[in-house]
C-alpha cells in the first residue's frame, strides 16, 4: 500500500447556489485511493457522496461548481485541467458507473454502435473489425452470454442486470486506472448483485484498477472494500481501514449506521436506531453537524470538531469518540 495514490482528493468543496442560499454539498472532503485498492464511500441521501464522484470525473451540472480543493489524478490536478484534456481522460483513464445504467446507455442506439463509438472516440485509427472484436470481448468479460448476438440489441431489449453489465463493460473498455461506481447494484436483485460484485472485484485484481465504490449500504462495502470513508452532511466524519471502521467505529454516526443493520440485532427486538434525520443542507446546525441526533453531544459540540487521526490510519471527526469495542 505504499504505492503513490491513483487519486488524491484534497479539501474538495462543491457548492450549489440556490435562491435560499448556498448549498455546500461537499464541504472540505479529502481522500485517497491507490492502485488495486477498493475504497468504500459510505453515506446516506444528501451526504454528498455522488457529488464527490461527479467532481472527480468533472460532470457536475451548473450552477453547481467545485469551489475549492484539488483533485490529483496521478499527480495532475483535474480541477485545473482544460476540458479537451479532461475529455481525453474521461472514459479512458477514469470511468464511472451509475446506479441507473441508462445514464450510460443511449436508448435509441444499438449496443454495437455505442461500444464501438466509445472505442474509436479515443483510438481514432482503430479498424472497424478490431473495434467489433474488442466489443465482443468486452461483453464476454462481464459474463454476457452470446455477446455477438447481444451486440445487435437495443438497451430496452435487455434486463436491468444485463444493462448494468453492458454499462460496466463500457466503463472497463479502456482498462481505466480509476473506476468510480455510484451504487451500481442498488437496483439489482441479490443474485445479480453478487455476479456484478464478483466481476468488478476480479477486474480490479487483474488490472490494478483503483475503485471507489459509492453506497449507502455498509454490508456491500464489508464484502468488497479495503478502506472506508463515511460521509455525513457533506463532510468526512470517519475514515480508515475496513476492519477498523466495522469493528472499532469511533464516530457515533458510524456506530449508529452499523447498529441499524438488522442482522446486527437480535431477531424481533427493536433495532438500535439513530434518532431524527439528516439536517437540511440549507440549515445545518452550528458546530458538529451530527450533534442534534447524537446521544453523546454536549456543549463542546457547539464547535466544529476537526477530522483527526485517532489510531494509525483511522481518523474521526468527534469530540467524544466511542472507544469501547463494538458489540458483536
Amino acid at each position, binding site marked *: 500500500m505504499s504505492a503513490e495514490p491513483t487519486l488524491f482528493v484534497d479539501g474538495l468543496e462543491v457548492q450549489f447556489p440556490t435562491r435560499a442560499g448556498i448549498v455546500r454539498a461537499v464541504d472540505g472532503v479529502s481522500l485517497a485511493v491507490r492502485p488495486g485498492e477498493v475504497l468504500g464511500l459510505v453515506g*446516506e*441521501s444528501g451526504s454528498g457522496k455522488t457529488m464527490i464522484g461527479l467532481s472527480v470525473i468533472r460532470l457536475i451540472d451548473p450552477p453547481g461548481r467545485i469551489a475549492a480543493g484539488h483533485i490529483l489524478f496521478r499527480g495532475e490536478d483535474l480541477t485545473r485541467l482544460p476540458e479537451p484534456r479532461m475529455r481525453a481522460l474521461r472514459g479512458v483513464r477514469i470511468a464511472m458507473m451509475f446506479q441507473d445504467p441508462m445514464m450510460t446507455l443511449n436508448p435509441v442506439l444499438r449496443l454495437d454502435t455505442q461500444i464501438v463509438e466509445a472505442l474509436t472516440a479515443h483510438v481514432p485509427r482503430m479498424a472497424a473489425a478490431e473495434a467489433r472484436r474488442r466489443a465482443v470481448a468486452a461483453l464476454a468479460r462481464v459474463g454476457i452470454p452470446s455477446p455477438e448476438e447481444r451486440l445487435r440489441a437495443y438497451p430496452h431489449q435487455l*434486463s*436491468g*442486470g*444485463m444493462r448494468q453489465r453492458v454499462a460496466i463493460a463500457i466503463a472497463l473498455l479502456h482498462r481505466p486506472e480509476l473506476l468510480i461506481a455510484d451504487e451500481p447494484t442498488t437496483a439489482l*436483485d*441479490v*443474485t*445479480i*448483485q*453478487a*455476479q456484478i*460484485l*464478483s466481476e468488478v*472485484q476480479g477486474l480490479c485484481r487483474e488490472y490494478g484498477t483503483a475503485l471507489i465504490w459509492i453506497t*449507502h*449500504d*455498509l*454490508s*456491500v462495502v*464489508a*464484502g*468488497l472494500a479495503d478502506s472506508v470513508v463515511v460521509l455525513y452532511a457533506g463532510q468526512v466524519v470517519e475514515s480508515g481501514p*475496513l*476492519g477498523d471502521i*466495522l469493528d472499532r467505529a469511533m464516530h457515533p454516526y458510524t456506530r*449508529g*449506521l*452499523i*447498529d*441499524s*443493520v*438488522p*442482522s*446486527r*440485532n437480535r*431477531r*424481533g*427486538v*427493536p*433495532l*438500535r*436506531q*439513530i434518532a431524527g*434525520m*439528516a439536517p437540511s443542507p440549507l440549515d445545518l446546525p452550528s458546530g458538529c453537524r451530527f450533534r442534534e441526533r447524537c446521544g453523546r453531544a454536549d456543549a463542546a459540540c457547539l464547535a466544529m470538531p476537526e477530522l483527526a487521526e485517532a489510531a494509525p490510519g483511522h481518523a474521526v471527526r468527534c469530540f467524544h469518540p466511542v472507544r469501547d469495542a463494538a458489540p458483536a
Partner: protein
Amino acid sequence: MTPLLECRGISKRFTKRLDLAAKLARGLGAAVAEETVVAVDRVDLAVHEREVVGLVGESGCGKSTLGRIAVGVLPPDQGQVLYRGRRRDTLKGEAAVAAALAVQMIFQNPFASLNPRLRVRDIVGEAPVYHGIVARRDAGSYVAELLRRVGLDPAYADRYPHQFSGGQRQRIGIARALAVKPELIVCDEAVAALDVSIQAQVLNVFIRLREELGLAYLFISHDLGVVEHISDRVAVMYLGRIVEMAPTEELFAAPNHPYTRALIAEAPRLDRRGQSYAPIVGEIPSPLDPPRGCHFHPRCRHAMDRCRQEAPALRQIARGRVSACHLNDQP
C-alpha cells in the same frame, strides 16, 4: 387454529391482449400471439393472528402480486382467499366490509402512495370517518393519536405530503393503514426506499405496533436481513411459486432449497469481509417463458433430468417446514 388469512391455491395470470394492428398482422399470417405471464402459480400461504410472515424473492417472482391478492385489490384467477376460515369472495354486507378493513396495505413508494392534494388529516382520517369507526367531530383527535403512535408530531396534520421526508411519508402511510383498525398489514417493500438509519426507525415502528396492537404482518421484501429480523416465518418465492417455507431461524440456519441457499449465501452482510463472490450463474428467466419442470433448474448446480421434466411439489421436510425440491426425495 384457523388462520387469520389464508390463500389457497392462488393463481394469477396477466395477458397482454393484441391490439388492432397485431390482430391484423396475425390475420395476414404473422407469428404474433397473446403473451401470458403466470405471475402467481398455485400458491398456498397462511398468516395467523399476531404472526409476521416474511415473503422474499427477486423481482418478477410474483411476491407483490400475491400481496395484492391477499389484500383484495387484485382478484385471483384461481383459488380462494379465506378470512378467518370464510371465503372472502362470498361474504356480503357488513361481513364483507369488516373482512376488507381487516387487511390493509403499506406500499413501497412513499412518494406515489399518498395523494399530494390532501392534507395529512384527510389522508389518515378519511377512511375511518367514512366507515363510521370515528365520528367526524372526533376525527381530529383520532388522527392526532394515530400520528403520535407512528412517531409523528400531531401538529403536522395540516401539512401536505410534499412537506415530508421519505421516512415521514412512510409513517403517514402506516398511520393511514392503522386508521381502520386492521388485524393484518401487508407491507410491500415498505422500507426498501429508505436510507439505512431511517429504515431502522421505520422497522422499529412496525415492531412496536405489533406489540402494542397485536398486529399480524405479511412482510414482502427482497432484503433478507430485514425479513430475518422481523419475521416469525419466511416463504421464499421464485418465478411465481413458493419454493420453501420455514420458521425464520431454521430457514436461515439450514436452508433446504438450492435457491434459498444461494440467496442466503450471496446476501452481503457486515460480518462477511473480503468476500469472494461465487454467484449462481444466469439471469432470472423471463416469466413469459418459464423453464419446464422446476423453474430453478437452469441455474441450479444440482439439477437432474427429473428437474427438467417435472415440477417438484412443496413437501413437508420437517415439522413446520416445506420445500419444493426433488433432491429431498433422494435417499
